[in-house]
């Protein structure tokens, strides 16, 4: 879906910031009637542009003081080992993101932990024991910003 107009882009941006806004409120903001705004939002959802809602929490205030990005290389490759690895890694609650990538590593993981010693526990007991896991590189997150991306506003 690439035939978006300015109003669609404005709706996407507004909803990515705050999904709790009603179609009526968004319509008033962008000069649309409530049904017109609702139809546009539904179209964006059906096209898969809006993938779903996400509850945004402050990890630190919930006691998760450490976020680590891991690059993981598999020691053995083959279709079966990829499936085994993916099934096991997605089941780890502390692993928030798993991405299969091409390059220096085979997978990128985003892991949260309470502190560094908790991270060490996750790394030793959960990550290093994954089927087929080889080299692992860890980078501890210091700061993060999400950008709005190319919506041209």
């Amino acid at each position, binding site marked *: 879906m*690439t035939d978006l107009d300015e109003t669609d882009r404005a709706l996407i941006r507004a909803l990515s910031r705050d999904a709790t806004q009603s179609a009526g409120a968004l319509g008033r903001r962008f000069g649309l009637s409530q049904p017109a705004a609702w139809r546009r939002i539904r179209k964006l959802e059906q096209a898969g542009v809006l*993938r779903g*809602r996400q509850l945004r929490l402050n990890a630190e205030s919930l006691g998760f003081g450490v976020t680590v990005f891991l690059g993981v290389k598999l020691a053995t490759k083959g279709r079966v080992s990829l499936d085994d690895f993916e099934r096991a890694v997605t089941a780890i609650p502390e692993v928030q993101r798993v*991405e299969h990538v091409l390059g220096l590593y085979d997978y990128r993981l985003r892991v949260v932990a309470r502190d560094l010693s908790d991270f060490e526990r996750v790394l030793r007991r959960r990550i290093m024991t994954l089927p087929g896991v080889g080299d692992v590189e860890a980078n501890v997150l210091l*700061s993060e910003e999400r950008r709005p991306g190319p919506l041209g506003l």
Partner: protein
Amino acid sequence: MLDDLDRRILRHWQSDPALNPAELCERCGISAGKTARRIARMQDDGVVTGVGMVIDWSALGYSVEVSLRITLDKTIARAFDDFIAAARDVPEVTEIQTFLGRVDVRLNIIARNMAHYQDIYRSQVLTLPHIADIEALMLVARIKAEEALPL
């Protein structure tokens, strides 16, 4: 600060953020008023920062996604600040993270196709200040993406 009840609310809400307040308090097994008060307090305390829609860039025609792992020239005192300020001006950058480790900064970049990516890389990434080294990881598939916390 948070008790078991708060965590129960967050667990249910996190697993299904589309729930309305009535459905949420029903799942948690507590009264509507109590749920609303707890949620309002967690919002005031900054524990809950909001509910947002997740944009699927591939559905918008951005089929290429690359994670750039960048090492900066740390002999320059303002390397991080200069680099990040300039990276913010590249529209195709969707995430900027800084690290303690072998990598200094990570940029997540989206592009319509490989030719578009090559153009962004050459004209907007390689021109960013104070880069010592860059490694690229190209996204093949997202296996887990919801970024939930293990509450």
